[in-house]
């Protein structure tokens, strides 16, 4: 059954989930090469891995489960909710991870210094934490509202608010919900608490998504 489900996932895989992240990756590579003298390469690199990748992951996740023309047939098969959730979101995370790692390799190759972000672990957490958080938020929003649009605007809204008022997000209790802390304020004393809080929030979102996925009649 699992093999059938994986085959189904690959057959119904929306190709824009693959070509768009790759196109965006290529765009940022070209941007880095073109603007190398005008803009600091490090700023472009961190804008891509820590800000653009979570946005793409979040929007893709909002469409991951419900944007399926055969969703009714899929719900008629004995596939567990957890399996649907895992297959759809893990694939998105995998594509974003490949893009992030490929860009980090490219950036290191052209001599970008990632040391302001801290250790190698911190570098990878700086894109992984916000990406997982946005994927969880996008999936949860879409499933909660039973509409891809609701997941989309939640992702768009959270992203734009946190990017624009980023200085305000780093203070008070908002700091625990600041998804760009690892990439934009890596020296913040509460970074570890922030990352734990975001992972926790992502887990809660995914848990409730899993619970809601059991009520299949909501999505048909």
């Amino acid at each position, binding site marked *: 059954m699992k093999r059938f489900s994986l085959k189904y996932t690959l057959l119904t895989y*929306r190709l*824009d989930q693959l070509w*768009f992240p790759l196109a965006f990756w290529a765009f940022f590579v070209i941007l880095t090469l073109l*603007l190398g003298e*005008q*803009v600091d390469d490090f*700023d472009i690199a961190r804008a891509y891995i820590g800000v*653009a990748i979570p*946005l*793409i992951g979040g*929007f*893709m996740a*909002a*469409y991951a489960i419900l*944007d399926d023309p055969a969703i009714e047939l899929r719900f008629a098969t004995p596939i567990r909710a957890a399996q649907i959730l895992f297959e759809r979101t893990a694939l998105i995370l995998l594509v974003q991870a490949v893009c992030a790692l490929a860009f980090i390799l490219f950036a290191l190759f052209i001599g970008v210094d990632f040391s302001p972000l801290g250790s190698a672990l911190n570098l990878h957490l700086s894109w992984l934490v916000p990406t997982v958080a946005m994927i969880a938020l996008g999936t949860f929003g879409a499933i909660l*509202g039973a*509409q*891809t*649009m*609701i997941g*989309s*605007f939640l992702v*768009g*809204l959270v*992203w*734009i*608010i946190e*990017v*624009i008022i980023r200085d305000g997000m780093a203070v008070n209790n908002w700091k625990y919900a600041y998804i760009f802390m690892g990439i934009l304020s890596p020296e913040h004393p509460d970074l570890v608490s922030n990352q734990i809080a975001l992972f926790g929030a992502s887990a809660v979102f995914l848990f409730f998504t899993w619970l809601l996925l059991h009520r299949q009649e909501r999505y048909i």
Partner: protein
Amino acid sequence: MSRFFGVIRHEFNMSLHRPGLWIAYGLLFIFYSVTVMYPVPEEEVTLLTNQQTWQYAGQMAFTFNLFLPVVVGILSADRLLRDFRQSVRELQESTPLSLVTYTLGKYFGVLAASLAPVLVWVWLISGLFIAFGNASISFLYAITLAFFAIMVPAFAFVIAFSLACPLVMPLRVYQILFTGYWFWGNYISPEFFPTLNGTLLTASGLYAYQGFFGGFINAADPLKYSASDASLNLLVLGLCIAAVMVVLNFYLQWQSRRA
């Protein structure tokens, strides 16, 4: 003309019945209401002067423009596309409804549905602001003008693109590009990174805010844009909207011929 208003009315009602619109607006209205009203209880209440009333009205509309157009752009992106996805377009083509009437009716219907709740809320929050003794009744007039000079052009601009672009690219791809564009094209400093911000294509309302309303109260930096710059900005945005609608019309004509 009755068909045109019929399409507007239908689209307006459909858009207003979407739960997504109310959830998104509800979240933002709460957020903005708290930020507008929160300082009042702690600070000494001071009545705005005439000049400050004008500036504060502009500041409020400019601040609302930070996030509201993003929600509007994302939510309106499927309004035209859904007619194709649900095969309603084929039925519409069999009626005597002309393509121009359909496109413009759809556009103004979505625009009206996006603006109406915001205008009501802006009046409500301004009324509270006046009731708390922060401004005179003339603030209501100033905020209404600010709404039309700053918010309406931004909404009109993003809705035009949100109706047209998803017809030629996947919806989610458009939404990602649009969200990224709103930040890149309006709020990144041109000194830091090449951007549309600072050009006449800026849709955030900064030109109108500075040119017509005088910018921030007690701002240290001199104003960058004059009233004529603001008028030119509105003209350029209007031309962009017209261009998008013309291209959209041609595209739909081509689609009908191909079908």
